[in-house]
């Protein structure tokens, strides 16, 4: 997928052919390797792997595969969104940006496929009995998955090679190919989620584990919540990786022009990442609710039992993401002439964010010495314990989202003064809308403590609806208000302190670490089951490891992922420097 080749339909077909050939070879090699290993190793339900052990080996490869899969699904979504913005605004730089990121895909596809094949071999060789059970159960979906992989590869190559050919009047054809790439990518994600979610919340099988309804097994309790959660997370992840790539290039830039280009690129990446990140807690809450509803045992394990400690780490990371996003925006306002008008909002916003973060990170059950426990009368603090329940967390996270959104809006209008005569009224409406949403969030948050849990859960929907409505109304007013606005001056792209770029790294690393951590919780709550409540894990690994051990593995995976991503970035940057 070299960009040095002249784009043409012939090359598109050649590229697609090369991709199909590569995937076919890898799949055949994986199948043959698995068959050969199975034939020479003694027959067993489980086979052990020296050094790492079965579970850890599968865990590392599966997680890395998932992260690269998120990369190759997230980046095309990111590229497609920026391409659409380019068409809508008629600004070529958006089209160039989309093209730049699509270029990253070739290497990432190869790595995803290699890791996927390796995972397949590990499954077949180390967990033969269970893999055989699952593949028999879901045979049609495996076939669909393979068809989708080939489809995705062919269309992705077409998407890249036709970029320059399908410009101008033909641009809509290119956008259509972009839609297809993302449809295939999303379909792949949805199919892979079938197997994962079936293992968590099995349906469509009888007591003996025989299939009674394939559709029920597919459309199990957690399938759609995970689909939506992962889809949003992929967009956020794609944006964050794109922003991190821009940050690397910014820090290595030699000229002002380069700095300006990559500063802008980092901004667009972070914008898309944060925009997708904002609804993510709502989708996560839906998933958590479905898990709880499917099995109280899993729900309690996750939120109140042994795994609840990991949520404190999650809270720290998510709270830090909010802080980092605002930090980046506020630093960015330093390069926007006129944005100093809004510096006065930073103090109240930081107070709100910090209080929100404190509430978000307050544990319900507190680590305490026996003297502290005696003083509290147990492991729940009579006052702080109120912040440890979901009613408080929802209120906090909604207010943090609202604050971050407000930061965005201030950033957006940084150098502009509305020219429309009704601007003053519009600003009052915007202020009222934000205030009303905050009041709804706070009001329902407090009222939540006085109602039964099934009603309390509905309140969280009202809180989310209030925040989303406020955002929609604010933007709906903002767009016409800023049409034809006067400008203080142009944004001085490139003139941003280097530390802002580290905030972009932080976003990407935190997203990745969170994916690993939350994935571990989701998978770990099955405990000693392959398929929860139906097929027991009878291997020596059917135990829950310590949190310290588990988080070390997650951290290690994150480091390996970024080392591999660095290679992708390096190759892309080198390609740029090579003469055409």
């Amino acid at each position, binding site marked *: 997928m070299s960009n040095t080749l002249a784009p043409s339909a012939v090359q598109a077909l050649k590229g697609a052919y090369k991709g199909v050939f590569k995937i076919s070879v890898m799949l055949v090699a994986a199948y043959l390797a698995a068959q050969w290993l199975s034939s020479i190793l003694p027959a067993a339900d489980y086979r052990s792997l020296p050094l790492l052990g079965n579970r850890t080996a599968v865990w590392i490869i599966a997680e890395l595969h998932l992260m690269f899969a998120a990369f190759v699904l997230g980046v095309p979504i990111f590229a497609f969104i920026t391409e659409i913005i380019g068409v809508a605004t008629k600004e070529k730089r958006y089209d160039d940006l989309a093209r730049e990121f699509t270029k990253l895909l070739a290497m990432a596809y190869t790595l995803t496929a290699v890791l996927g094949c390796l995972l397949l071999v590990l499954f077949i060789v180390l967990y033969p009995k269970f893999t055989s059970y699952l593949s028999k159960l879901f045979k049609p979906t495996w076939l669909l998955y393979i068809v989708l992989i080939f489809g995705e590869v062919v269309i992705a190559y077409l998407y890249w090679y036709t970029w320059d050919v399908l410009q101008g009047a033909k641009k809509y054809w290119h956008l259509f190919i972009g839609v297809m790439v993302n449809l295939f990518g999303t379909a792949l994600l949805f199919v892979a989620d079938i197997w994962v979610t079936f293992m968590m919340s099995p349906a469509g099988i009888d007591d003996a584990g025989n299939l009674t309804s394939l559709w029920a097994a597919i459309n199990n309790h957690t399938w759609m919540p995970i689909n939506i959660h992962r889809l949003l997370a992929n967009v956020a992840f794609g944006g964050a990786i794109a922003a991190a790539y821009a940050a690397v290039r910014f820090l290595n830039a030699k000229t002002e022009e380069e700095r300006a280009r990559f500063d802008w690129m980092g901004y667009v990446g972070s914008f898309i990442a944060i925009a997708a990140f904002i609804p993510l807690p709502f989708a996560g809450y839906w998933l958590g609710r479905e898990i709880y509803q499917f099995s*109280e045992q899993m729900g309690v394990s996750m939120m*109140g039992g042994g795994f609840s400690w990991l949520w404190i780490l999650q809270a720290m990371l998510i709270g830090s993401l909010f802080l980092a996003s605002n*930090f980046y925006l506020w630093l960015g306002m330093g390069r926007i002439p006129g944005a100093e008008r809004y510096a006065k909002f930073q103090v109240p916003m930081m107070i709100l964010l910090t209080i929100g973060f404190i509430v978000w990170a307050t544990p319900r059950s507190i680590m305490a010495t026996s003297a502290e426990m005696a003083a509290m009368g147990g492991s729940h603090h009579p006052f702080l314990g109120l912040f440890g329940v979901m009613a408080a967390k929802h209120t906090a996270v909604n207010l943090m989202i609202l604050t971050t959104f407000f930061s965005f809006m201030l950033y957006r209008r940084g150098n502009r003064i509305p020219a429309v005569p009704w601007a003053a009224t519009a600003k009052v409406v915007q202020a009222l809308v934000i205030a009303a949403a905050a009041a709804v969030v706070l009001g329902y948050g407090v009222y939540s403590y006085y109602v039964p*849990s099934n009603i309390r859960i509905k309140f969280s929907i009202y809180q989310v609806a209030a925040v989303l409505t406020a955002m929609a109304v604010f933007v709906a007013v903002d767009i016409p208000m800023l049409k034809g606005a006067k400008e203080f001056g142009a944004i001085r792209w490139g003139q941003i302190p280097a530390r802002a770029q580290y905030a972009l790294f932080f976003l990407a690393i935190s997203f990745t670490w969170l994916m690993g951590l939350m994935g571990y919780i989701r998978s770990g709550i099955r405990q000693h089951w392959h398929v929860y409540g139906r097929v027991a894990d009878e291997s020596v690994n059917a135990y829950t490891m310590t949190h310290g051990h588990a988080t070390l593995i997650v951290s290690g995976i994150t480091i390996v992922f970024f080392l591999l991503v660095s290679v992708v970035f390096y190759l892309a940057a080198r390609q740029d420097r090579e003469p055409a």
Partner: protein
Amino acid sequence: MQRWTFHIALCLWLAILAGFKLLIRPPMPASVLTIYMVLVTLGIMIFVAANEARFQAFLAPLKAVFEGRAPKLVQALVLAGIPLLAAWGTWLRTAPSYDAPFEARVVHPQPPLAMQLSGKKLNLAGLQNPLRANAADLDKHTVEGKRIYYQNCFYCHGDALAGDGHFANAFTPIPANFRDVGTISMLQESFVFWRVATGGPGLPKGAAPWLSAMPVWQNFLSEDEIWKAILYIYAGSGSTPRTWEEAPKK
């Protein structure tokens, strides 16, 4: 004003620490105080670093000290203060203590999929309180539950169901406070039934160290009596059990 950024930030940090230490009662455990102060530090530092002029103003006094431009006394205080603070921190961490170690107690122990009740297996998934099926008899059962509660549970869980019965302070931790929003109102009745019927000895290994002096009530009460007592603790504490609008797919 901006030239005092460092001093304001430091005073704010100390004021918040003092507030947490002095205003929250009972005292905040050290683990929570650490989390809160890390977040406060993060909040202050992010705010300071988010504006170039503010950041440089914040760094100015530090640069003055470390570049030797500050008064000698200030330099001496800072340079002596840093190792002294480190030494104090080291002493606090290494000094022998007779306190029991921290206990990582989970919020709720994880219920099993099934439990043993008087020799028979009872699946907890989908288990409902059978006494709620007939609404006409609900009040009668609740009154009986109240009697059972006062004969058996009251001594620990208290008259107001707030975990403050006569014997409560003999236990660490004290018995559950049913009026707390984080206890029974968070749970389905099947969970509460399991906890009551199997007591402390029925707690899973995964929930360790879970300290509970609760007896195995199935040895003293019938299945119906346990359900009745559960009806009463919800009614008496003004809470309702967690329920779901729709049944899980089978």
